[in-house]
């Protein structure tokens, strides 16, 4: 997508347009940053998409968690569980693959836990998206920072699979 001509195109925007230039500008109206305000404009756009991404993750998590827990409580209205002594969750609720498998079988605790997993995955998705956006902005310092954060997060989550 980003051929070397894009850069030339941006830098020589004020110069006399060649047919090649104008064609590229026409094709990529959004990705051609205006020199004077490219940073704040891109950051603003990035903020809007990140905001949408966070909301999307939250909505998925909320739907999974609230539907399954309402059904769970209706089915077990008098259930009492003691959390006074730590016994640890059963193995099926500790690993992401088991949580997904049991969710498809209709296990309500697993579906609740799937909602928790989606919630945990949301900030990870946000960092992954940041890597992409910074790469598109050719902001290499922040590509490195966000890639390292992403790598650390994925390493941490792999422990749970």
């Amino acid at each position, binding site marked *: 997508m980003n051929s070397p001509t894009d850069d030339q195109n941006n830098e020589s925007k004020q110069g006399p347009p060649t047919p090649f230039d104008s064609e590229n500008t026409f094709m990529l109206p959004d990705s051609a940053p205006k020199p004077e305000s490219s940073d704040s404009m891109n950051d603003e756009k990035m903020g809007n998409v990140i905001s949408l991404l966070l909301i999307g993750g939250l909505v998925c998590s909320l739907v999974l968690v609230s539907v399954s*827990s309402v059904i769970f409580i209706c089915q077990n209205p008098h259930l009492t569980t003691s959390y006074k002594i730590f016994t640890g969750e059963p193995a099926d609720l500790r690993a992401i693959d088991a949580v997904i498998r049991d969710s498809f079988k209709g296990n309500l605790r697993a579906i609740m836990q799937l909602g928790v997993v989606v919630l945990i995955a949301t900030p*990870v998705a946000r960092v992954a998206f940041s890597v992409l956006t910074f790469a598109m902005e050719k902001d290499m310092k922040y590509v490195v920072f966000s890639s390292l954060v992403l790598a650390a997060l994925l390493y941490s989550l792999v422990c749970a699979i």
Partner: protein
Amino acid sequence: MTELELSVILLLSSFAIGFLGALSGLGGGSILTPILFLFLGVDLKYAMGSSLVAAIATSSGAAAAYVKEGYTNMRVGMFLELATTFGAIFGAYLAGMASKSFISMLFGLVLFQSAWMALKKKGGEEDGEASSDKDAEWLNLSGTYPTSAGKKAYGVHNVRGGFAVMLGAGCLSGLLGIGSGPMKVLAMDQLMRLPFKVSTTTSNFMIGVTAAASAGVYMSRGYIDPVLSAPVIVGVVGGSLIGARVLPKVRNDLLRKIFAGLIIFIGAQMIYKGCGGSL
């Protein structure tokens, strides 16, 4: 107590936690741990698991609004996330080895220290320079944020000091199951001299990632219970969305008092419990 009663209590308290967490940048985990542990008699490990979930929910709920409104400094957040994430992974491994009373004590002391630092800083913080120092310039960290008088530019300072504190903050986060909001807010507010609302909202933004870094380890150890977590998520998200709507109207000195008051209250309880547990 039945699951239903417990869920309702958790839902209501989580709503308040999400609200206060969105305002104070504390993430809410540091408020939920003592509620579960001290008032509901839940084992500290389950409490830590649920608090981690609360921290992520507060972060996503509040950040969705703050990022869009332009409070959050995403570059500062992403740069410092580097420190908190690696710190958090290290801290989470320590959590299995440290004793409950030791963690409680440590938690309380951290909070006392944080409150003292927050109250020590007196007014006039909104007149910060708009220029950044060299490191911050290199990292392109300067930003603007909305005030009642329109967008205002601010500079960022002492990036190295902030980064070092964030390594420690991340480690505590993994150790204690909180998003380590107090230290994040303080490092940005006091060391890096960001405006207070930018500090709290950027802290909110980062907390989700720091907490997610510990979540894998917590989950594989069985700390995260779905029945405890479900009402927490619903309540916290609701509260944080309302909190994010209120923040633009709240004055800074009031925010500072809320921030300091919360952490003194919690710190005292945790130190008490830490002492009791070891006697």
